[in-house]
């Protein structure tokens, strides 16, 4: 949700210098990877629809364009885009406008430009967070003289930093909230120092580490990511974390003891916020549609009655009892306002996890800047921890909400300690089902062989690595660090996976090949009509799928007709860019060699992709009039 207090200013600071384009054969260059990560980030921002503003600063550009440039200072640094809401234009810029430069620029100079930009352009606007994300391979030289001033200024102005590098830097397991097992990739990637890096880069890594350590301490190192890490977990972007509203209250024990507390939601299920609005199929406008609810009697004519002639009632078993809103308001339970009151303490084993309910976890801290409260709460936290007990509390958010009974248990970390509150069920919420015993049941008692097979299965599928010497257990699959694929999916637009759907349809014979290909062609048409690169790639997937399946099902003629028609359409609609992709990927007509039913020779197929002037007149002749959606479909 877009709330002003949660607004952030983000500068994407990307190295486009010479070395960024270097890569090993068959690997994407750091330049391409950085673009990918940025694209993912901006996509996410666009769809998150918050009021965050994003700027883009490039360094290592051939030209220079920034407010600080003078003489030989701050050269080869370009402010590509000033702070503003991200949109599709920015995405397109990243996709196509950013080109690798042939120069090198000082990373620290670029940082200063970014800081200057943030400070100037956020003036007078309220931003909760200011943030710079640096994408670089660290291969350009930099001058250290200003490092301390930079760190000082970053701290002073509350600007946070994140670094994205082509390689992992090998960091120790962190502390605090993120510290429950280090990031996945660290254990698969090379450990420190990464191979094949230059002296300059080593120096760069030291500098980056120093900056992050001075800014955030040990935790700072966790804000240095490798590109592959970032691509895998979009959530690394600091920005996308949602902040919780503080809830201030007093923890009370009896009538005489209270401790000032503040609580935050620490875990709650993030759902896709935006919902689909219903629009008219023809005009695509939602204003054209209205919904109305009518009431009617339960008689044969379904006689309509107006809302005013109805009253509210409730079922009480077999009876329906009229009960007006006013009466209800007057007689209903009233909670007497917010509270966090201890009802009693019990052994922690009595409050089993299976009883946890509700939709949130609260972390309860002592009130800010109140040492007395902090000591009092700390006493409670440690008392509970040492006794292995928990508090059962009554929690009311405010006078309008219903009371809850929940458990508050201690959580002690290196950096902080708190109580964790989770709701518990009321008697009415419990379902006491009984199930047949599995133990003394002859029908389902496993044999020794079965048991040992399961035993072996568990051992072979362990998700942890035990270090016997250090006595530590490492989580190889920390699920709580993996982002929800549902959000990622939202960020691809358009029909979800037409290529895959098509394959399934034809293989499972749920639709005839003809029907399925019709649908697929429709999708391709729609994609192309957008004239956007993102969709071109999707179209390509569809076309490739179509081609493969056509060969499988001896429907080569259908595909060839389609592709020929497509070529003509591309010409009419000026989608040359798209056709280049087709040519580049070498997707051509299905030849005799591939499918016996085809009459196309390899030679002809090659020619088909050649530029139009040289094209075989025969193959195109039949489709001279082509170029419309309907035509394309008719051909099949």
């Amino acid at each position, binding site marked *: 949700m877009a709330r002003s207090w949660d607004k952030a200013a983000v500068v994407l600071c990307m190295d486009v210098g010479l070395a960024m384009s270097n890569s090993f054969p068959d690997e994407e260059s750091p330049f391409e990877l950085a673009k990918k990560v940025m694209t993912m980030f901006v996509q996410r921002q*666009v769809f998150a629809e918050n009021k965050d503003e994003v700027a883009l600063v490039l360094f290592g550009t051939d030209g220079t364009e920034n407010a600080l440039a003078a003489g030989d200072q701050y050269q080869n640094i370009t402010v590509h885009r000033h702070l503003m809401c991200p949109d599709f234009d920015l995405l397109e810029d990243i996709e196509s406008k950013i080109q690798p430069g042939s120069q090198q620029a000082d990373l620290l100079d670029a940082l200063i430009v970014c800081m200057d930009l943030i400070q100037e352009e956020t003036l007078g606007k309220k931003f909760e967070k200011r943030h710079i994300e640096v994408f670089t391979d660290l291969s350009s030289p930099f001058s250290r003289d200003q490092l301390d001033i930079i760190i000082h200024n970053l701290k002073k102005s509350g600007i946070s930093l994140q670094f994205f590098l082509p390689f992992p830097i090998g960091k120790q397991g962190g502390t605090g909230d993120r510290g429950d097992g280090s990031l996945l990739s660290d254990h698969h990637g090379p450990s420190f120092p990464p191979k094949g890096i230059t002296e300059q880069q080593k120096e760069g890594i030291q500098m980056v580490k120093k900056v992050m350590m001075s800014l955030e301490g040990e935790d700072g190192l966790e804000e240095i990511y490798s590109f592959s890490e970032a691509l895998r977990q979009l959530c690394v972007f600091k920005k996308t974390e949602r902040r919780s509203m503080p809830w201030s209250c007093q923890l009370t024990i*009896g009538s005489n*003891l209270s401790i000032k507390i503040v609580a935050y939601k*620490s875990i709650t299920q993030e759902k896709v916020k935006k919902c689909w609005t*219903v*629009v008219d199929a023809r005009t695509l406008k939602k204003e054209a549609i209205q919904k109305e609810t009518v009431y*009617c009697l339960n008689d044969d004519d379904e006689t309509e009655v107006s809302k005013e002639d109805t009253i509210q009632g409730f079922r009480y078993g077999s009876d*329906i009892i009229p009960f007006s809103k006013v009466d209800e308001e007057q007689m209903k339970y009233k909670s007497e306002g917010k509270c966090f009151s201890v009802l009693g303490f019990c052994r922690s084993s009595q409050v089993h996890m299976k009883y946890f309910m509700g939709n949130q976890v609260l972390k309860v801290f002592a009130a800010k800047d109140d040492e007395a409260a902090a000591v009092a709460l700390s006493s409670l936290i440690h008392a509970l921890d040492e006794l292995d007990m928990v508090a059962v509390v009554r929690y009311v958010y405010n006078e309008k909400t219903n009371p809850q009974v929940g458990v508050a248990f201690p959580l002690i970390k290196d950096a902080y300690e708190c109580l964790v509150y989770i709701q518990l069920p009321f008697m009415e919420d419990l379902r006491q089902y009984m199930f047949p015993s599995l133990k003394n049941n002859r029908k389902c008692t496993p044999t020794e062989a079965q048991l040992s097979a399961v035993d072996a299965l568990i051992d072979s599928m362990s998700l942890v690595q035990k270090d016997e010497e250090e006595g530590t257990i490492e989580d190889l699959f920390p699920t709580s660090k993996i982002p929800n694929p549902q959000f990622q999916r939202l960020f691809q637009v358009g029909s979800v996976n037409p290529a895959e759907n098509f394959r399934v349809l034809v293989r499972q014979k749920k639709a005839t090949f003809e029907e399925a290909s019709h649908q697929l062609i429709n999708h391709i048409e729609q994609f192309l009509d957008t004239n956007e690169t993102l969709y071109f790639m999707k179209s390509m997937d569809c076309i490739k799928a179509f081609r493969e399946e056509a060969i499988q099902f001896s429907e080569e003629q259908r595909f060839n007709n389609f592709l020929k028609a497509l070529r003509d359409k591309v010409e009419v609609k000026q989608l040359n860019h798209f056709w280049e992709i087709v040519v580049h990927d070498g997707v051509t007509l299905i030849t005799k060699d591939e499918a016996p039913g085809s009459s196309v020779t390899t030679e002809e197929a090659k020619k088909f992709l050649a530029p139009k002037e040289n094209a075989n007149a025969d193959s195109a002749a039949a489709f001279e009039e082509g170029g419309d959606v309907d035509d394309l479909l008719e051909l099949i």
Partner: protein
Amino acid sequence: MFESQDEDELTPFDMSIQCIRSVYTNKIISSNRDLLAVVFYGTKKDKNSVNFKNIYVLQELDNPGVKRVQELDKFKGQEGKKYFEDQIGHGSDYSLSEVLWVCANLFSDVQFKMSHKRIMLFTNEDDPHGDDSAKASRARTKAGDLRDTGIFLDLMHLKKRGGFDTSLFYRDVIIAENEDIGIHFEESSKLEDLLRKVRAKETRKRVLSRLKLKLNKDVTLTVGIYNMVQKAYRPPPVRLYRETNEPVKTKTRTFNVNTGSLLLPSDTKRSQTYSHRQIVLEKEETEELKRFDEPGFILIGFKPLMMLKKHHYLRHSLFVYPEESLINGSSTLFSALLTKCLEKEVMAVCRYTPRRNSPPCFVALVPQEEELDDQKIQVAPPGFQLVFLPYADDKRKVPFTEKVMANPEQVDKMKAIVQKLRFKYRSDSFENPVLQQHFRNMEALALDLMEPEQAVDLTLPKTEVMDKRLGSLVDEFKELVYPPDYNPEGKVTKRKKDDESYGSKRPKVELSEEELKAHVSKGTLGKLTVPALKEACRMYGLKGGLKKQELLDVLTEHFQKA
């Protein structure tokens, strides 16, 4: 049934009536579509459709309602006993097979389909037809007939002097189901025992879904998913026609504003707008957007149980139990998996897709061993708890308060406080006061009572008892942790506010036109405070709204024009 064993004990009859009443009121709250009936046997009078002797149908199968609860109340206590004697009376004889016959008739009189039929027999007579083997054998045959037609028969046996011996008669009558479940109840001497026994039987297990659990490419078993905790809400209101108090139906229709014509679902599409660009999909496509995998579990691997973090709770857990009906041998494999997970203290991490169009999530299957209480009632069934694990997106970084550690003396004092307020938590200790009050209100309105009975709010702390138990401990603790002038109830922020708003600090803002112009041209107007900006707006007679950005816009516009 009407004699109590001890002076202050309830008679078995009283206990049964109270138990039935509680079932009625619970049904009203939880599942008001269920049908209930009450039949007395061994009565003097008789009332039933086939005119059998000694059988009195008090209530036919129907939804529980206020009137029926009131009727049951008449049989409560000493007065109830008298009322029973006057109205119905004790008989000398009965035939259990006839009783079962009457009950079966009640079921067949109901017109619609029932998913579940059950007879609960409340008795403290362990050998009803000891001297009449013909009657006993007829009862056994009848019980068998009921089983064949899908009617369950449960024995709710009550305490009998010398012990209730099920082997005398009932073991042969009640066999079938219980042998499967392997649960043999003890006789109940207390109301709460009886209530638990009844509740365990009367709640019908409803499986949420039956899914495949894939251990690897080749090995799959099927499991059923159950909800053991489910938030109970106040039932939704129904709309009634003012004149007759009869419920009305609601219909929703979609129409086109311009033409007024009704729209069919196919006349609409779904749309979202991002950054001024509209994305339009068919309704089916929006559904498909959510589709990832086929429904089911895919095993990813195992982790030690101790790695499950209590504070990583996402949503209430579910229960997993094998489902033999789809894949044979599921129970055996499940049982092996459960045994080994318990033994090795590991949980299974899986990818779980509950339905076709729902996104997948990570879950931990936490093994749970079967547990029985001293009444041999199952309190924890054998199976796996399905615990949802959060995604990275679900976690939030919270701005934590700096750690200030308490010293051992302070911690010890708090330990003493904690020990004083120790109690045994039971998951059913607390009733929902909101729901309870709602139903009290309903009851009062239904019975035309003047004032509804106030529900006891069990969620309120019993401060008096607590204070008494704590005694001087609270003051001792406060002395240890709070400075003398510290007020833990006071609001820190309030004091601050007072200082600022009423103190002398408030600056009188006056800015020259030059200064303002300079700010506008340099774009540094935002450095000024809101009061300063307001003052500036007032000076030039500009209406600028309340927000800073609005003030800035107005001033910038003014000077740029000028």
